[in-house]
């Protein structure tokens, strides 16, 4: 590092030097080029200027180089020049310190001469010290400047780009490598990630050095494979730094390459920094910084990837989707979006465990990717949901692709341990329109279309159209979600009760009711569950509603029992399959019953046949647990499932409620009559008591009584009334 000494550095020493002689004198510095730069009072300046003009620089420098201690040199000995003397001392190479006198040396007395020599020597020594300090300081400034750049690089203290979060993956990584060339004094930076189909390059020099880029391209792949094998950061400052067994790796450039690890042993790509052969070596701190940047890159990639399938995650996918939307607003191209949902994924997860589920998700992910051309973007959007962004594909083509995908997936059979599963998907399709505000519109439309497809069964697809009746119905169901939440919040749900009475004298004559749920809507109308239960079931709100019903019912029952301790009141509460499958629900029920102080015998639960069968083991566990504390159970809507009898043996219920559909028509329809009769008989054989719903009139009442049905419920007996 070369540092220039300034004659101003001499200012502070001038007064000391001026003490050495009684003639005018000053200090100056000889520069390497022979120039003399001096300090002088304005008055004396001209004299010294003349003096200097007549100094033969070459003579002087020749002499000066041979001198190591200060000495006097006389100039102007021919008498034509002003009488002057020059004293100079060896200073920091290549500088020479000069002392100038406005008098010839022989006119300066001896004492003054030796004093001047001494002072000049000391000043020279001080200057050397100054110079060394300045050099140190300058080195420290360099070092600090580099550290500041590194800090800026690591912490991203970048003031011009404040909004990094709006970057997508590629932009963020490009920004990272351009920071390397901007801040790290690196000639070339690149990220190579074939797995992600990504190759980014940034070169510092303009125009770019084609040699450097060509050299990078020749070693890119071998370097990648080398790092895949070693998983270690590699520094090559000289060719012998590595054993180049692979001839392809030969390069004279300096290389620093770090693996971008997504997890242990999962290398997503490499970060490569290169300097030209004459460029600086890569240091240890460069290596560490490169490691930090590689892990930064890994974080950027991870933030947008799903670690089960390696596909883009929701964030990564929506970024791409947004990018495409911006693109189609400008250019008249057609793009489509598919939303795929694996049918009955939950069953596989439940039966074979999460590990199996994850394996399946990975399989399906790669099935989708492999079935499509690489330019299409595939992402995992949720538990068992995938998104496929089809670029330059119109709706008709998208439908063909969706058909092909569902065919491929339908042919796939998933084997896990000893089990084999048939896999299928439902697909929602939507065409991207320039009118969409942002990615959320097409995404929710495709999701909606997929849900409609799912309602039609397995292995279906549905194309989103804004005017579609199915879609409208579906959307209105979705509206119910917020309506239900609001109703719960505003306490607009009500509990009604309908009496269940013995049909003959043999049965116990207790005061028993089935509790029913009603909703007072925003306009004060009373709505029955048929309006909102389908939506509540679809969007998994049943546990919330059931909890509310149980809690409220217990409070009301407790109030009745407090007013009349002799009451024989007992109530049946309906529960959905969703509720008793929910973890913690059993505990909630027992806890509520215990808290209420009501004897558990007074509480009956009704669960539907279909709910019980589809969650058989859960249902049995639930029933057994609550029966232990004294609750009773009825199997509701019995007969409607038709597969009923086989399961009946396994369900430890106390009552069978005969589906009202049969009861209603039993007087006119012989098959229905036979159903009622046989359900009753089988129930009795199994030791269960029977309840008939929809007892609409006296004739039915009489008929049921004569068949031996135990209890009845319906408009013919009592209408539902508010439970107050």
């Amino acid at each position: 590092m070369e540092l220039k000494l300034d004659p101003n550095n001499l200012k502070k020493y001038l007064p000391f030097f001026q003490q050495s002689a009684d003639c005018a004198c000053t200090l100056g510095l000889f520069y390497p080029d022979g120039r003399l730069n001096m300090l002088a009072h304005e008055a004396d300046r001209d004299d010294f200027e003349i003096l200097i003009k007549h100094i033969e620089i070459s003579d002087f420098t020749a002499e000066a180089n041979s001198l190591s201690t200060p000495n006097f040199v006389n100039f102007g000995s021919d008498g034509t020049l002003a009488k002057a003397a020059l004293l100079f001392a060896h200073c920091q190479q290549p500088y020479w310190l000069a002392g100038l006198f406005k008098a010839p040396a022989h006119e300066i007395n001896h004492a003054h001469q030796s004093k001047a020599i001494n002072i000049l020597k000391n000043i020279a020594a001080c200057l050397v010290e100054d110079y060394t300090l300045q050099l140190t300081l300058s080195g420290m400034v360099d070092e600090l400047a580099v550290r500041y750049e590194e800090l800026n690089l690591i912490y991203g203290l970048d003031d011009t780009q404040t909004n990094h979060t709006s970057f997508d993956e590629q932009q963020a990584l490009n920004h990272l490598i351009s920071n390397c060339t901007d801040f790290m004094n690196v000639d070339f930076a690149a990220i190579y990630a074939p797995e992600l189909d990504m190759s980014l390059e940034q070169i510092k020099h303009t125009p770019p050095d084609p040699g450097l880029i060509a050299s990078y391209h020749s070693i890119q792949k071998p370097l990648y494979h080398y790092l895949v094998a070693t998983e270690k950061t590699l520094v090559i400052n000289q060719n012998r730094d590595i054993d180049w067994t692979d001839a392809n790796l030969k390069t004279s450039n300096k290389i620093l390459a770090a693996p971008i690890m997504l997890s242990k042993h999962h290398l997503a790509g490499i970060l490569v920094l290169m300097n030209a052969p004459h460029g600086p070596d890569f240091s240890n701190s460069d290596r560490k910084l490169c490691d930090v940047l590689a892990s930064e890159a890994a974080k950027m990639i991870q933030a947008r990837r799903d670690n089960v399938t390696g596909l883009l995650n929701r964030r990564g996918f929506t970024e791409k989707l947004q990018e495409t939307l911006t693109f189609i607003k400008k250019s008249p191209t057609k793009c489509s979006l598919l939303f795929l949902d694996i049918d009955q994924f939950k069953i596989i997860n439940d039966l074979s465990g999460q590990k199996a589920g994850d394996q399946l998700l990975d399989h399906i992910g790669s099935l989708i990717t492999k079935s499509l051309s690489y330019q299409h973007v595939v992402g995992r959007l949720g538990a068992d949901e995938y998104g496929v962004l089809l670029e330059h594909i119109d709706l008709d083509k998208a439908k063909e692709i969706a058909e092909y995908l569902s065919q491929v997936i339908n042919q796939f059979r998933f084997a896990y341990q000893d089990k084999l599963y048939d896999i299928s998907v439902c697909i929602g399709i939507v065409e991207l329109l320039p009118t969409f505000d942002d990615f959320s519109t097409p995404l929710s439309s495709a999701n909606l279309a997929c849900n409609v497809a799912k309602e039609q069964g397995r292995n279906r697809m549905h194309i989103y159209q804004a005017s579609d009746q199915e879609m409208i119905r579906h959307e209105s169901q979705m509206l119910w979600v917020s309506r239900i939440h609001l109703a719960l919040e505003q306490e607009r749900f009500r509990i009604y009760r309908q009496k269940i009475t013995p049909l003959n004298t043999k049965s116990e004559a207790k005061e028993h009711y089935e509790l029913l749920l009603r909703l007072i809507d925003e306009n004060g109308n009373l709505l029955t569950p048929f309006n909102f239960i389908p939506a509540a079931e679809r969007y998994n709100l049943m546990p919330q509603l059931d909890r509310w019903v149980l809690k409220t019912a217990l409070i009301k029952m407790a109030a009745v029992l407090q007013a009349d301790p002799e009451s024989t009141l007992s109530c049946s509460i309906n529960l959905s399959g969703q509720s008793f499958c929910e973890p913690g629900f059993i505990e909630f029920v027992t806890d509520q019953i215990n808290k209420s102080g009501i004897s558990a015998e007074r509480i009956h639960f009704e669960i539907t046949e279909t709910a019980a069968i589809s969650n058989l083991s859960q249902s049995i566990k639930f029933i057994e647990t609550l029966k232990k504390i004294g609750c009773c159970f009825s199997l509701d809507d019995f007969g409607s499932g038709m597969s009923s009898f086989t399961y009946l043996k396994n369900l430890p219920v106390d009552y069978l409620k005969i589906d009202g559909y049969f009861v209603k028509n039993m007087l006119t329809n012989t098959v229905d009559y036979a159903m009622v009769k046989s359900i009753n008989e089988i129930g009795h054989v199994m030791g269960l008591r029977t309840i008939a719903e929809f007892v609409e009139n006296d004739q039915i009442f009489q008929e049921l009584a004569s068949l031996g049905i135990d209890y009845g419920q319906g408009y013919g007996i009592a209408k539902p009334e508010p439970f107050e």
Partner: protein
Amino acid sequence: MKKILIVDDEPHVALILKQFLERAGYSVDTALNGEQGLARIAEQMPDALITDVQMPKMSGLELCEKLVSRNPELCQLIILMTSRTDRDIRTWSENHPYILLMEKPLSLRRLVALLSHHFETVDD
């Protein structure tokens, strides 16, 4: 040669900036606080001012406000350095077209690039 005034109560920060900017070919003067800075500006208006925010006697913000109120036509570049990321400082600086906020530690390369870009645009 363009003149730059650096105002910072930490002498080492001012020294590093001074050395670095001098190497980049600027003439650099330093002051230890807002008051001193204002006095230097009164002697001679620099082409650019680089000032710290947190300083005793007179903060960088006060300095800037005084400077702007005294010279409404001011078009000199002012760079505010801060080690804190207070939102109010950020919003405050956004209201002044010639005031730029940079977080400490500064990237000296970026600073030099910024200055040369600024002077190029101004001179054009």
